[in-house]
């Protein structure tokens, strides 16, 4: 059970997946837009419950599978199987989602909710004037940590041993060494810089993404949206800064002997904590703040404009007429992109290309 932390992380992933229909906006069930007061419609409640149980069952199946495989294969092979397992789990649960997505569509058609209400779009004209995120100035903190790491490496370069440990196994033994060179030691501050940039970018997306307000109760919805953005902004700043701090540890360990096991426990423990915090945040806040209790307002006769046709499979937004690049996810918590905008693709390519480039540079 050396990979105990791997199981913990997987179980958290299963829980996050299973509860997704409960934390999405009340105006969207399984990627289909519905009036928010239909959230508690019995049929939809049943869909949510079935999805919860089915994705939990698949999750338990995978855990059992991992437990069996772990005793049969070597550790590095198991890590590969584990990573493949995560993907397999996400794909399988997507099919479960898709089943209910189709049923939701049929239900919507049958019940004809649209006919009874007026479709509108509501915007708060002063939305971006309100403080929806924490200041980007907070990212000076990880930047300072990065600079400090770089300076530390620069001034202590002579003292760093000729062989640098690059990879550990779960027992805390080094499995991969690299030769010391300015390039290899510079990798750490470069990674820190890239990460700082990435988290700053996430904070900007949270700030600039399209506002989405439930016309049935605009005032309440605006308040919830702001709380939602602020909480995730704070989460981004805290996780970003601490992860950058974690990357300062290996360079320190070149000179001070930090027990690799302790280092491993800190890294894995922190990863677990971040995912756990994300889960708590998702449950307490909900997508767009849908689970935040605020003053209750009137039940409106207005519903959001139906844009289901732009949401492919209920999850992928493709709307050439919409200038927005960053939009809220339909199913789940967080943000996604408008795939009809080239900037979305460029960002994707950059996010994949930069780490890939760094990996190639290192080997």
């Amino acid at each position, binding site marked *: 059970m050396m990979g105990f932390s791997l199981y913990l992380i997987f179980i958290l992933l299963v829980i996050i997946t299973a509860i997704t229909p409960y934390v999405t906006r009340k105006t969207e069930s399984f990627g289909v837009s519905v009036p928010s007061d239909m959230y508690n419609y019995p049929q939809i409640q049943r869909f949510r419950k079935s999805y919860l149980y089915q994705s939990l069952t698949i999750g338990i199946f995978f855990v059992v599978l991992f437990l069996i495989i772990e005793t049969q294969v070597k550790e590095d092979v198991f890590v590969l199987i584990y990573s493949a397992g995560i993907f397999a789990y996400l794909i399988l649960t997507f099919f479960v989602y898709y089943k209910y997505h189709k049923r939701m569509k049929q239900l919507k058609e049958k019940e004809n909710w649209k006919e009874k209400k007026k479709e*509108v779009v*509501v915007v708060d*004209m002063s939305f971006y004037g309100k403080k929806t995120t924490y200041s980007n100035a907070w990212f000076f903190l990880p930047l300072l940590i990065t600079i400090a790491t770089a300076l530390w490496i620069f001034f202590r370069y002579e003292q760093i041993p000729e062989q640098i440990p690059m990879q550990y196994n779960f027992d805390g033994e080094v499995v991969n060494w690299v030769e010391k060179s300015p390039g290899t030691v510079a990798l750490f501050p470069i990674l820190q810089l890239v990460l700082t940039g990435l988290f700053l970018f996430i904070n900007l997306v949270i700030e600039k993404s399209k506002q989405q307000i439930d016309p049935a109760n605009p005032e309440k919805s605006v308040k919830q949206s702001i709380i939602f953005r602020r909480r995730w902004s704070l989460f981004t700043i805290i996780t970003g800064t601490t992860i950058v701090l974690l990357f300062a540890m290996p360079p320190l360990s070149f000179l001070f002997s930090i027990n690799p096991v302790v280092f491993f426990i800190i890294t894995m423990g922190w990863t677990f904590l971040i995912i756990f915090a994300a889960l708590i945040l998702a449950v307490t806040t909900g997508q767009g703040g849908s689970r935040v209790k605020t003053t209750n307002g009137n039940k409106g006769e207005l519903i959001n404009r139906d844009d289901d046709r732009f949401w492919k499979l209920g999850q992928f937004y493709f709307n050439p*007429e*919409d*200038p927005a690049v960053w939009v809220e996810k339909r199913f789940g918590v967080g943000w996604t992109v408008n795939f009809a905008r080239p900037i979305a693709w460029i960002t994707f390519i950059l996010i994949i290309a930069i780490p890939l480039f760094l990996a190639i540079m290192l080997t």
Partner: protein
Amino acid sequence: MIMTLDFQSDFPIYKQIRNQIIEGIAKGLLKPGDPLPSVRMLAQDLSVNMHTINKAYQLLKQEGFIQIHRQRGVVINPDGFPKITDDYLAILQESLRPLIGESVCRGMKEEAFLDRCRKLFQQMEKGGEGQ
């Protein structure tokens, strides 16, 4: 100010935007100097073409309700709003004609019509959110 746009209405979107901003000013929800979202931001929030927003803002600018600065962005005109001019009275007259005409055809009494006008006037002057 919360703006509600009806995309199924026959009334064009840019006119709906213009009218709601003017109504916001009338109700005191938008005060001189208050910032409005940029063309890009409003377009993304409404999922409409930027030309639509531009059209609404240009109209409001020509009429003297807003100012568009390169640096400060779009603001409600801080120098006050246009006064009642002969031109405006002519437009008012022309806009009312068909409405009154239809009301008369439908058998509406003068007092009932004026009563509605009075209520709307009071709503605007009293201000605040809501209909």
